[in-house]
């Protein structure tokens, strides 16, 4: 598989009155096309900073972002980015929210709507197309926000804790739904989460991150075959990976506290 996104010694530092604060230590990361990769770590480990850098919303203090081998540092509109909040515009219907990316790119509205409608119906938003976001449940809002990100037509999508605010039951449903979308659309996904189990269940590879400075502690490939089943979370293989992740995060947290 060719490398889709490559971070080349990307680092972030801020000048503070107390000296230089390193938010993210210069790090390398290669993400292959079509893979589902998760970043797991405590708050303050620079996950969101990395996302903003990849999305071109933040200029790294050092290093480069390469997308398809091209320098994309500080270039916006190259990747789909779903922020933690769903950010659906309350004055637009679900349909018109979902086509926002295409609209901004200058696609005629009619064409964009025609393209989005069948997808809304296929991916669980049938009957909600012409409603306003305030009448949707949390899960439905996340679905709309995710479809908006997917319909932006970029090969790479960044998902920043998309299911963080959902209840446990809805979260599981949404994970299955995301898996279906991912296999249908063949995108490269970078996923940020606090939830280790979620990360393992969804990903091909996990990067466990640590704080102060933000860095990758360890990269763990997940060799569990696809399509996956909930039962997979009970296998010794799954539990072993989970244990390793938790141990990493824990040890790191203890070192931090010491």
């Amino acid at each position, binding site marked *: 598989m060719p490398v889709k996104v490559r971070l080349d010694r990307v680092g972030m530092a801020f000048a503070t009155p107390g000296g230089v604060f390193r938010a993210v230590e210069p790090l390398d990361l290669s993400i292959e096309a079509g893979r589902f990769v998760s970043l797991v770590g405590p708050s303050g480990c620079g996950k969101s900073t990395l996302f*903003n850098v990849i*999305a*071109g*919303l933040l200029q790294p203090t050092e290093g480069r972002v390469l997308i398809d081998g091209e320098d994309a540092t500080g270039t*916006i*509109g*190259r*990747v*789909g*980015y779903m*922020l933690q*909040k769903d*950010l659906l*515009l*309350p*004055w637009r219907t679900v349909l018109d929210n979902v086509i*926002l*990316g295409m*609209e*901004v*790119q200058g696609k005629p509205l009619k064409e964009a709507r025609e393209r989005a409608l069948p997808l809304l119906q296929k991916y669980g938003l049938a009957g909600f197309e012409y409603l*306003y976001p*305030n009448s949707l449940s949390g899960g439905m809002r996340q679905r709309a926000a995710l479809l908006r990100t997917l319909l*932006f037509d970029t090969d790479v999508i960044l998902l920043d804790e998309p299911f963080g605010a959902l209840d446990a039951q809805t979260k599981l449903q949404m994970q299955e739904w995301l898996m279906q979308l991912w296999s249908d659309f063949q995108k490269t996904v970078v996923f940020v989460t606090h939830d280790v189990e979620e990360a393992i269940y969804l990903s091909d590879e996990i990067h466990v991150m640590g704080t102060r400075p933000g860095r990758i502690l360890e990269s763990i490939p997940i060799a569990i075959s696809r399509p996956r089943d909930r039962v997979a979370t009970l296998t010794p293989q799954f539990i072993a990976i989970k244990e390793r992740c938790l141990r990493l995060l824990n040890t790191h947290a203890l070192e931090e506290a010491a």
Partner: protein
Amino acid sequence: MAIQDTHRVAGLPGVDAPPGTSSRTKTQPKPARRLPVQKDWPLWAIIAAQLGLLIGIIGLWELSARAGWLDSFFWSQPSKIGHTFVVFFTEGDAWTDISFTFRSTILGFIIGTTTGSLFGLSFWWSRNYAAIAQPYIICFESMPKLALAPLIILVFGLGLTSKVVIAIALTFVISTLTAYAGVKAVDPDGEKLFYSLGATRWQVFRKFVIPSCLPWIISVLRVNIGLALTGAIVGEFISSQHGLGRTIFYAGSTYEISLVWVAVFVLSTLAVIMYAAVSWLESVLRKGTRQ
């Protein structure tokens, strides 16, 4: 029954007292208190009471004037006011005056609100520009704008323009400040979303900033219609050839108290109609913004 049941649960000593203390509370029973219930009168009764009050006040006024308890030279009396009212509409300039005041108010309201809001929205484009403009806006905001009225009349003449300008002066700054407050409250994450989609600044402004600030601008409409009317009336007080304000001022200085009352009533009616229209406009716009 339902009320009694809830009451019993709340008041029952054994329920809210911890177990074991029930023997103590048993000796001092709580007084049985009931939820106060107010019965709504039917609509016709409310309207009848309102009309009765109105007729009572007018009747008392007329009676006091006739009996000499109230000096009708200063206070006039309803029968005289009624007569003046008819004269004002049949022989006087009622419609010219109403239309003059209405036009200057509406023009001032529309121009002041739109230009003020656009000025406030423009601060989104540059923080530096906003910082430079800030002290001037605050200065103009704290200045009593009506104090400028004589100057405005001098510059813009005795006609409609000067009244419109005073109405604009009153509505402009508050619109600017409200729209600017809206701009400051725009969700930075929303802007981030738009930029991540590769949006231009103009797209962010049009598709995100303006709709986000719209509820703020809508909230200022009702205040502004009142301010615009005040501006127009004050302008007419100072110097004018037409308008309800001019009629009030003129009638007052010639001791035609009943005409003062007539003009005040007509003005109030005009104010209520405009206020209702703006409230309606507000509800329509709010539906559009879904917030």
